[in-house]
């Protein structure tokens, strides 16, 4: 009896079934809350022709950027890209298709995909290149465009804690797109820092119920920081002191 035990033992098992030309939705904002090791496993597998849906595309040697050198990504749907040289080279050379999508629309498209909402109207992007080819309709005197949902063959997620049932808790701003992406994958794979006993997570404080999760694996994470901004440690310098 497997029941609801979703824990898998290896990254190979976690990403089993991923094949060329699939669509993969990834959680994370910049390098914060990204499924580092699931991305590495895709790199290792060498799966090609992928359509990636993610707010960003990592940097040259970390995050989704590691899938660029071997041309594993065919298309990326993102709100902010180009933090790395290889990305820009491939995009400018027309080797990589980029569909720029406003951040809020991207988040809503993932949520809609998971929630059985095939399309919704938003004012975001009206009158801009984002509206090209999209229906415009007026509600209460204001124009909105119709945006369609996104569903992925796989969703790859980074959470803080999970139980074996796949209930998830995220930590601070590493939450970002992860709960949305988790709902929108036909197969949702989650890597976490810690797997806890079933019953240990307070039901009122679970961010993603296990019903959305197919596989859980425990990993260890580099958590690279993009902009290390600090203030002096001396409390006397803090405002108001």
């Amino acid at each position: 009896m497997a029941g609801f035990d979703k824990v898998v033992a290896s990254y190979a098992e976690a990403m089993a079934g991923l094949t060329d030309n699939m669509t993969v939705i990834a959680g994370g904002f910049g390098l914060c809350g990204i499924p580092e090791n699931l991305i590495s496993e895709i790199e290792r597998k060498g799966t090609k022709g992928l359509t990636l849906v993610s707010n960003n595309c990592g940097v040259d040697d970390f995050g989704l950027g590691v899938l660029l050198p071997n041309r594993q990504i065919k298309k990326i749907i993102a709100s902010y890209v180009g933090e790395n040289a290889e990305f820009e080279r491939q995009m400018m050379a027309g080797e990589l298709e980029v569909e720029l999508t406003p951040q809020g629309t991207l988040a809503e498209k993932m949520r809609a995909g998971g929630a059985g909402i095939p399309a919704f109207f938003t004012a975001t992007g009206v009158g801009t290149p984002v509206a090209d080819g999209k229906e415009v309709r007026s509600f209460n005197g204001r124009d909105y465009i119709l945006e369609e949902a996104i569903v992925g063959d796989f969703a790859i997620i980074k959470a803080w804690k999970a139980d074996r049932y796949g209930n998830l808790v995220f930590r601070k701003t590493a939450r970002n797109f992860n709960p949305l992406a988790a709902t929108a994958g036909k197969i949702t794979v989650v890597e976490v820092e810690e797997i806890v006993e079933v019953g240990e997570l307070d039901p009122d404080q679970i961010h993603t119920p296990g019903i959305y999760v197919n596989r859980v694996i425990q990993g260890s994470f580099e958590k690279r920081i993009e902009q290390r901004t600090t203030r002096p440690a001396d409390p006397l310098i803090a405002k108001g002191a």
Partner: protein
Amino acid sequence: MALSREQIAQRVAQELKDGYYVNLGIGIPPLVANFIPDDIEVMLQSENGLLGMGQFPTEDEIDADLINAGKQTVTMAAGASIFDSAESFAMIRGGHVDLTVLGAFEVDVNGNIASYMIPGKLIKGMGGAMDLVAGADNIIVTMTHASKHGVSKLLSNCTLPLTGKGCIKKVLTDLAFIEIRDGKFHLLERAPGVSVEEIIKLTDGELVVSGEIAEMKL
């Protein structure tokens, strides 16, 4: 003299009101946080999922899981809350943020804004900017009035791909505080020591100068 980046932020901060929820974009806008008047409270929203952004962390406080929309390490203020990206943009798109401050390449007399793309040159994407300009009723654009070569950024019609259409009403440049209304720029204030003539010269779109134009108080 033209305002410094800090002075622009300082003038923007005068537009803050007690109890405002504010989203500050990247570039000049984050500097506004340094000039919040002592007698008011403001909460900063960061669109990656944080309401109640605090100051930068000390070395000891750095947490890779806690960044702002500019991907900088930050802290949380008392009363902060964390949420996912859909909730964050529900706040923004739903008009719950009281003031948005963001930069731009160009604005025009119809309130259009171009801020995210220079075809062939800069194609990094709009991030949350399109949602922010579409969702907020109260937006202040901060930018330099003209390029280094004296080319105005306040135009009759934006030349670059738009970030938003008809959504900008206030622009604070290094030279002037300008309101957009009835398809025209309206000069509200000028930077200390900057003449009305200078501003007229560097404003491409129609500029209405009505009566005496006061200098900004900083």
